[in-house]
């Protein structure tokens, strides 16, 4: 695979984490403009861990997850009783505070003769773990997609579990859910922490892919984009947000289609798409249709081959 | 005066009205009874132009109004006092009355009518600068009626005006209905309080599960049966 393709694919995989993060909160009924904050926290935490503290990558990513989850839970405690635009703005306010905080944050140490660490608005460079440990971009891409596959599998399993139903119920009609004995605020708190963890993981991966991050990578644009990916790809399944990222970064940014007019084309496409499908391409109806089709196909196959391995008798 | 024929209205795929036909005669009080979920409110909203019927015709003085906007229907002299009153909570009593006259352009006539409403509902005059959301339930009901009257309707639709009110206030509401009718306003009334409603109605209909199932004049004999059906639905009443 050529380098460009590898870097684009890795990027798609990583941005999918923050898109999934916004998606999880959407399922819980909350719109967040601020998931980029936890992405940033994950990036800085994991970067500090490997580049400054010389931790191994796996541990650094765990730190990113932990920091993202804890920060999201803390913010959630203060804001989750808000709903709608109030919550969205509170998360955005927090994210912007974090971004400006990183612009003011400088902490550098001497590593092998040069200063390494976050340096205010100039960002945080020399996160060279992959290079130092001779991990190739292609190998790293596999790591990214391995983790993404685990996350997607977990989300799909969750969706079918009692937990997933509780989550969607709390999101769709909090008053009714409350009447049915669901502690909506607590469900949302767990969802917010999980979303923070996802964003933190993505952030850690992001810092190591780019080797260099700066506060302005984590502005409101990233936040609203992550939200938009879910709505473009569809809210019916966890594949939706990933599809959204794929369409934006994969199809439009990377292919040089519409060069110079990309945003005009993309913006118009999204606006028209949303009119036709307000809950995205893979909305609940589409997912239901696909899964019943797939089941039909599967049953047909199973019927034709009576000795089918899944049909033990 | 108002003629509804074969009207069907749906929420998404679920039909709440499955072919409703009824009429309200000029100068009369017509009452619609029925159990919860029968589709009474749906019918009211359909007539008022808030919901669009899938099919059927709604005529006001012979003219088709099905499919017109609610604004056009108000202009033609039909006003609805909705279920749950729906006053403008953040606006004062006076502003609510002004809003009721939204379709009218005669400033002098509007001011006169506001004075007339205050005379009819003295409580509203006392509280004219108070926000409507802070009025008591009974006061809000008075305001909702007064607001509807501000459009000078020829026919007034009322959806459960006694809902959630104390018996004394309910009496007051029904005496207002009677006096409005004496002043020449045609009234089409939805009620759960069948006893009170049948006391004032000239004609009534019974609606169940999206259909009109009974129609008649209030008379002593049928009343108990009707009340039972209106509260409990057909099945349990006949069981």
């Amino acid at each position, binding site marked *: 695979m050529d380098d460009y393709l590898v870097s684009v694919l890795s990027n798609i995989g990583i941005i999918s984490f923050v898109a999934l993060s916004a998606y999880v909160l959407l399922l819980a009924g909350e719109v967040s403009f601020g998931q980029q904050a936890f992405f940033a926290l994950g990036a800085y935490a994991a970067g500090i861990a490997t580049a400054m503290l010389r931790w191994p990558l796996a541990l650094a990513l765990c730190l990113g997850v932990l920091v993202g989850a804890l920060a999201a839970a803390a913010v959630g405690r203060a804001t989750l009783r808000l709903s709608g635009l109030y919550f969205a703005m509170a998360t955005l306010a927090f994210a912007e505070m974090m971004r*400006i905080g990183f612009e003011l944050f400088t902490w550098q140490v001497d590593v092998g003769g040069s200063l390494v660490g976050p340096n205010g608005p100039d960002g945080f460079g020399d996160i060279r773990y992959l290079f130092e440990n001779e991990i190739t971009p292609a190998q790293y891409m596999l790591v990214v997609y391995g983790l993404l596959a685990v996350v997607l599998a977990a989300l799909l399993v969750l969706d079918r579990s009692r937990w997933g139903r509780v989550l969607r119920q709390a999101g769709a009609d909090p008053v009714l859910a409350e009447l049915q004995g669901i502690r909506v605020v607590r469900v949302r708190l767990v969802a917010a922490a999980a979303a923070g963890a996802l964003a933190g993981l993505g952030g850690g991966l992001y810092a190591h892919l780019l080797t260099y991050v700066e506060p302005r990578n984590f502005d409101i*644009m990233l936040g609203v984009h992550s939200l938009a990916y879910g709505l473009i790809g569809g809210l019916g399944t966890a594949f939706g947000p990933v599809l959204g990222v794929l369409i934006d970064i994969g199809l439009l940014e990377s292919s040089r289609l519409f060069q110079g007019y990309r945003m005009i084309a993309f913006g118009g496409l*999204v*606006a028209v798409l*949303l009119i036709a499908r*307000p809950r995205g391409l893979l909305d609940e109806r589409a997912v239901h249709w696909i899964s019943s089709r797939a089941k039909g196909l599967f049953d047909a196959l199973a019927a034709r081959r009576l000795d089918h391995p899944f049909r033990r008798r | 005066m108002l003629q509804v024929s074969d009207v069907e209205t749906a929420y998404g795929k679920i039909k709440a009205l499955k072919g409703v036909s009824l009429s309200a005669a000029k100068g009369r009080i017509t009452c619609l009874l029925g159990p919860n979920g029968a589709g009474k409110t749906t019918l009211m909203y359909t007539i008022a132009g808030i919901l669009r019927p899938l099919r059927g015709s709604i005529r006001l003085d012979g003219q088709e109004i099905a499919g017109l906007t609610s604004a056009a229907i108000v202009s033609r002299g039909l006003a609805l006092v*909705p279920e749950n009153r729906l006053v403008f909570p953040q606006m004062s009593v006076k502003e609510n009355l002004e809003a009721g006259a*939204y379709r009218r352009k005669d400033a002098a006539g509007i001011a006169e009518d506001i004075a007339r409403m205050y005379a009819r509902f003295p409580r509203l005059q006392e509280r004219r600068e108070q926000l409507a959301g802070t009025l008591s339930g009974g006061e809000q009901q008075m305001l909702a009626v007064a607001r509807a009257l501000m459009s000078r309707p020829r026919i007034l639709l009322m959806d459960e005006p006694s809902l959630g009110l104390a018996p004394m206030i309910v009496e007051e509401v029904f005496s207002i209905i009677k006096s409005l009718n004496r002043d020449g306003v045609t009234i089409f009334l939805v009620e759960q309080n069948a006893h009170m409603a049948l006391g004032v109605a000239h004609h009534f209909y019974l609606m169940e599960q999206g259909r009109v199932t009974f129609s008649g004049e209030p008379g002593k004999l049928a009343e108990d049966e009707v009340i039972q059906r209106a509260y409990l639905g057909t099945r349990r009443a006949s069981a």
Partner: protein
Amino acid sequence: MIDIIQNTVDGVMIGSSYALLALGFTLIFGTMRRLNLAYGPTIMAGAYLGTYAFLALDIGVLPVALLVVAGAAVAGLYVERLCFRPFGEGAAIASMISSFAVWMQIEEAASLALPHHLNAFPRLVSGQPITVGPFFFRLDHLAMLAVAAAAAALVHVVLHRTRFGLGVRTLIDHRRAAELVGVPVTHTLTLAFLLACAIGGLAGFLIAASEAQITPMFGMWATTKGLIAMMIGGLGSVPGAIMGGLALGVIEAQAQWLFGPQVRDLIAWGVLFAVLALWPGGLLGGRQVAEQQAVQRRV
């Protein structure tokens, strides 16, 4: 002490333009219950039209002002048709994301029209600041305050003395009830949307004329400042928007003087966060939200 007073005065003058931004925002949110993220970019489109004509045709500052307001309204019409009109009740998030998509469009269109990042914008007034005792007042800021106050007063008159204004107020208060009394909803919503964009355009003109320059970043800037001011004051409340705008101006002026521009922004967001966490309805909206909930519980 003198500095604090001077900062407050400066803050009120700058805040008057924030108040206009928030006023437009709140009219849209109040009537539609929808967040128009493309609000700032719409204003930026108007400002770009103005500056484009200014650079190409060398027209005076007043025609530029008219062009900015008209351009913002036309761009607003595009946004309304594409992002708001087609969505029924309930698709609030789709509408919002759609307006974000259009934001991207407008931003790119602006940089295609005027490829320089920074573009000159005509000043409204120029001259020496007026000094009164130890205080001084920039002329352009005085003009900003005067125009903004006049515009706010005009909006007040429109809202309280015209039928259209009555319709807008009923829609802000209770949409279904507005329909019942015969307010032509779609029509009134569209007009309110255009009015809001025109108010925003005026605010944008005042700000760009005071800075004497405009960049494509202005769209995001106007959306965020308008949002913060609107939320501090209380969502969907007209007096709240004006108070919120003035409060934001004063807070920023003091913070900038004390700590510099970066911390100023940090404090502005921090104040918003604190207001939301402590008084969820905003400074003026709090009581109203509580009342509204009480009303909803009663019915």
